[in-house]
């Protein structure tokens, strides 16, 4: 039985789709709007480039920004090669059998493990067992382990979306397996791999739990000296300002949040640029 005429139906469908989108987008806009409106007033060159003063109630957040940048860099350094290599192995080399299926299942599930679990894992393995102590190295490794499943999954999808015919053409011209991967598959999967990687790492940059026990310093009135040093980091600094230090100006908290969100937005924009740049050229 049909009790709606198609035009009414069309309107209802459109409206519900539109409203669902609004429900998702509105809170994001609201949150960003509040952060910007309340935090913008403290943003200044000085805020971005000087040390905190007076028990972090004044001054800048320079060491936290630097710490986060170091951590992101370190994470990228460890996670990108390992992620791409294992994705290549899983998608191009391994035979499909129960073992690889199990590995794939494990990777998918690892992506869903709460970040605090990674934090404790990092504490146990890197900080204590490998005696790295709370350090940029231990923190980066912990974050890398956390983002690896996401990077591997994104990279595998990117590799598998490269048409089979590219591989066949390459093989039929007498290329070896590695040559085929290197010249006929990887270049066309790279945009997808990079976007997935950048997105996952920008998410990691905002995490507090994994760095809590592995690197984050409550207050460090100087920049870290080496990768074996502790470091301040934006998300943890924000947490400290909001809950651990009494009488902090609310604008300072919002300003810190704004810098963190800004960094993440910039990285995500970067990913979007990579994607659109390659989409123009991708034509299959």
């Amino acid at each position, binding site marked *: 039985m049909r009790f709606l005429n198609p035009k009414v139906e069309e309107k209802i469908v459109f409206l519900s789709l539109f409203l669902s989108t609004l429900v998702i987008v509105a809170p994001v806009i609201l949150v960003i709007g509040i952060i910007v409106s309340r935090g913008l007033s403290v943003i200044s060159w000085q805020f971005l480039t000087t040390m905190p003063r007076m028990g972090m109630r004044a001054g800048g957040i320079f060491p936290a920004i630097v710490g986060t940048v170091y951590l992101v860099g370190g994470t990228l350094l460890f996670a990108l090669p390992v992620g791409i290599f294992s994705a290549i192995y899983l998608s191009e080399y391994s035979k499909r059998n129960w073992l690889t299926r199990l590995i794939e299942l494990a990777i998918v599930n690892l992506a869903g493990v709460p970040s605090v679990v990674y934090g404790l894992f990092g504490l146990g393995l890197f900080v204590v067992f490998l005696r790295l102590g709370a350090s940029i190295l231990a923190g980066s490794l912990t974050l890398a382990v956390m983002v690896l499943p996401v990077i591997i999954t994104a990279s595998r999808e990117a590799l598998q979306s490269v048409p089979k015919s590219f591989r066949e053409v390459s093989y039929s*011209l*007498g*290329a070896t397996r590695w040559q085929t991967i290197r010249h006929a598959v990887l270049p066309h999967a790279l945009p997808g791999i990079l976007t997935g990687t950048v997105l996952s790492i920008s998410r990691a940059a905002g995490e507090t739990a994994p760095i809590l026990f592995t690197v984050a310093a409550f207050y460090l009135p100087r920049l870290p000296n080496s990768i074996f040093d502790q470091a301040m980091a934006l998300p943890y600094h924000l947490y400290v300002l909001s809950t651990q230090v009494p009488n902090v100006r609310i604008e300072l908290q919002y300003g810190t949040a704004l810098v963190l969100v800004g960094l993440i937005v910039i990285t995500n924009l970067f990913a979007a640029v990579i994607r659109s740049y390659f989409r123009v050229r991708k034509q299959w």
Partner: protein
Amino acid sequence: MVTVTEKIKVKSFSVTFDGEPALKNVNFSVKEKEILGIIGPANSGKTTFLRTLNRLNDLNPRYQHSGELLIDGKDIYQKWDLFELRKKIGMVFALPTPLPISIFDNLAYGPRRHGIGNRRQLREIVERSLKSAFLWDEVKDRLNESAMKLSGGQQQRLCIARTIALEPEVILFDEPCSGLDPISTAKIEEAMQEFKKRYTLVLVTNNTKQAARVSDRVAFFLMGELVEIDQTQKIFTVPKDKRTEGYVSGRYG
């Protein structure tokens, strides 16, 4: 009597995918520098045969074979180096398969993988191959543009040129004109007549008229069996087998 060398020899060759037979005990040979047409209805194993010749089927874990397949008298599975074999046996697929890189890079893909890095040498190879595929005049001013911008017919000639760039000895065509207009088809057929002077060609086609126009000999496949192989003229005028007669006269298939 002149002895013609057998370029390809197929001896009691069978193929199965997951145990399902795709080629059943096939025996025949392809002579040096002839054009062998392979005709037959869908599912008769034509593509399977071509993809076996350059061992592309090896990529499929469900593929299994028995019997012998000799090229230049050497078993392709025992005596040939896999990459050397694929270099010598070029393949042109049914749908045009340009890589989404420049025309030049498409042509240079094979030679580069086999160690030719010299830009001048590559340029010569590119020009020569494009000329033999009758594509040079149409693309000589835009070698650095993406190959995806070419028309379907041009893309297919690009793929042919890309195969030629490796100086193969055998070229396998799998319905190379199935999606093309008559003019592109004519250009490709013209190119094949030229290639015949230098290469051995195997042409799978669904178009019996094309097989009749182009081939020296024709093989008729049906359900994985080789029903008949003979001079083109004989196949189309006095076939020995009733099934061949039925197929070429268009009564079934």
